[in-house]
């Protein structure tokens, strides 16, 4: 039976915090030098940032996809640093920040279920804990800034190799001003049983978050990383532009799960890409709720024989929101296979878009791909678009794509209401059922949270 919360305020609180250093609004080369200096970065990183800034200035805004005209690059804080150093112990974390995390339910989740937590509050890791047995196995789980300091060689070898700064305007922006994010290295044949998680929040008005995550799963290893977001509500637009790079070596497996619920004024423009080597497996599980505009297409490059990729995404677009999501798979080697499953829900004038690409180059024999996108539209004011592209240069392949768009059936509603459910409850139940194939793959506590978020989104949707 569904419970009605009817209380939307649960996810729209904010806590007063004192930032140690907040950059001026707007971006220039001096600010980038200042960020790099404050972080005491090596020179190559400063040069990398400055080069990326040059690219950012020359690249045009994307002229496809969502409407990005509301972004004012001069009205954004590019760097905020809440503390001097990321701290390892929970006791050292300032009380206001703890308070915010308490509201998010982090400590319980962490104590009960999770091995390690990288909690991103504003631009930097404030709290980082890593279960001892993981550290013993040689697993590195640090903020990206610490990763650069503590493991310079490993870091330099992989950083920027999957998503180069020239990839797109927002990848260039992130490369210039990145701060925070997670750096994870899993050594050969190490399997991390429990999901690792990081919580992200934006907590100062007009503050951009440009976190940068780099995950390297060495041969035969496996890891499940969970990123969850619930951001407080703000009065003016915020920009979130992350870059996630993942390297999945021979025989390794990486699952990257995102649950995102940005407040309705956030532009969420994220570049996520994984490189999968021989017999490796990469899974993106991406749930997008909230935000004003989301443009996010997790990608997988299947680079060596036998690599497998899977992208599952769920998008919920409500009033004033545009979820432009999807996935890309590029088959560069024989015997590779991939699956893309996308489900989107549009409500109350919201717009959801699936945008995808499947590419098979010549010589990539015996490739198998399946793409399924389903859309559910809850009212006449909403909009749903599908833009899939299949570019196949090899004969020996099996590529299938299908899509359906539908509204909630009168029959289904009538049946549920005849069983005693109110119209809103019935609609919520149908939406939950539609989303379930994706939701049920989430870790249990996240599945519960997501179902609750879906129910919250559905309150007031009827009548």
């Amino acid at each position: 039976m569904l419970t009605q919360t009817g209380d939307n305020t649960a996810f729209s609180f904010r806590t007063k915090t004192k930032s140690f250093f907040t950059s001026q609004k707007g971006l220039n080369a001096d600010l980038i030098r200042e960020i790099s200096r404050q972080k005491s970065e090596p020179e190559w990183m400063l040069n990398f940032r400055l080069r990326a800034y040059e690219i950012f200035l020359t690249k045009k805004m994307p002229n496809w996809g969502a409407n990005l005209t509301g972004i004012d690059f001069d009205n954004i804080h590019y760097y905020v640093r809440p503390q001097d150093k990321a701290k390892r112990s929970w006791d050292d974390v300032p009380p206001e920040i703890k308070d915010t995390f308490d509201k998010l339910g982090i400590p319980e989740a962490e104590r009960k279920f999770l091995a390690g937590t990288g909690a991103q509050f504003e631009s930097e890791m404030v709290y980082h804990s890593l279960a001892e047995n993981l550290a013993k196995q040689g697993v590195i789980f640090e903020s990206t800034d610490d990763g650069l300091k503590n493991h310079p060689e490993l870091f330099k070898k992989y950083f920027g190799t999957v998503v180069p700064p020239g990839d797109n305007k927002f990848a260039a922006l992130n490369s210039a001003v990145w701060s925070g994010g997670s750096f994870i290295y899993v050594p050969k044949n190490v399997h991390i049983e429990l999901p690792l998680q990081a919580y992200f929040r934006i907590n100062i008005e007009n503050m951009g978050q440009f976190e940068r995550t780099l995950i390297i799963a060495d041969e035969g290893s496996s890891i499940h990383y969970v990123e969850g977001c619930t951001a407080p509500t703000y009065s003016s637009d915020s920009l979130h532009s992350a870059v996630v790079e993942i390297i999945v070596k021979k025989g390794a497996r990486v699952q990257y799960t995102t649950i995102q619920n940005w407040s309705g004024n956030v532009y969420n423009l994220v570049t996520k890409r994984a490189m999968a080597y021989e017999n490796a497996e990469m899974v993106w599980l991406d749930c997008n709720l909230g935000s004003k505009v989301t443009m996010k297409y997790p990608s997988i490059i299947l680079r060596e024989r036998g690599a497998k990729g899977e992208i599952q995404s769920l998008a919920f677009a409500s009033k004033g929101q545009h979820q432009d999501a999807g996935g890309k798979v590029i088959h560069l080697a024989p015997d590779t296979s991939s699956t893309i499953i996308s489900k989107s829900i549009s409500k109350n004038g919201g717009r959801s878009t699936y945008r995808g690409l499947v590419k098979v180059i010549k010589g990539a024999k015996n490739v198998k791909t399946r793409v399924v996108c389903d859309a559910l539209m809850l009212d006449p004011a909403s909009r749903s678009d599908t833009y899939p592209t299949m570019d196949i240069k090899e004969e020996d392949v099996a590529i299938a794509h299908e899509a359906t768009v539908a509204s909630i059936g009168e029959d289904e509603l009538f049946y549920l209401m005849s069983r005693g459910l109110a119209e809103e409850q019935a609609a919520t139940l149908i939406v939950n059922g539609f989303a379930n194939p994706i939701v049920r793959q989430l870790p249990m506590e996240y599945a519960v949270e997501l179902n609750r978020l879906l129910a919250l989104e559905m309150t007031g949707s009827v009548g």
Partner: protein
Amino acid sequence: MKKILFLNTIPNKTIVLKNNEELTIVGLITNGWEGIRHLTIKAMGRGAACKCIFFILGTNNSSYSAKIEAIHAAPQTQIKARIRSVLTDKSSCGIEGAWSIEKKASGADTYFAHHTLLLSQGASAKTAPFLEIKTDDVKAGHAASVGKVDGDALFYLLSRGLSEQQARALLVQGFFETELAAIENEKIKDTIRVAVTTFLSKEKHE
């Protein structure tokens, strides 16, 4: 009133359908072209219906590229396109389907499918079935696939004593036959069947 249009290419053209107008467009396409053809189908009147069935037989190094745009601009309209292409040699086929259902087009019923069979190493296909839907009371779907002749099916036919050419011809005929059922004109059906057979025997000699 029902009309059938039988074409040998994808034309650069805009077709406008009025109230309750029903049109079937059948294309049997064997010669390629340069650049991208642009066919637009607009259902402007209530109850207008259009069925597009294209068969593309790609040979040599020809290219078959087209953008087919379908606009549902009135209630209770139907635009359905089914395209099947069989590609040999270094032929390539790129079809972009741009389907849109406007706000006033409630009750629209729309479908786009492009299935491609690649018969040679050098053939390539690109498919982009785009769908934009601005109202909820619709039935919409699209499908696409790219593949080669099914190895198991081929093996089965060979084990029954057919030559490889005969077996492949049969499978390609089967690939087309599913769409032929929707055509109500027997003469057109026969023309297409003959074209498939001659196309495959030509393929063998080259």
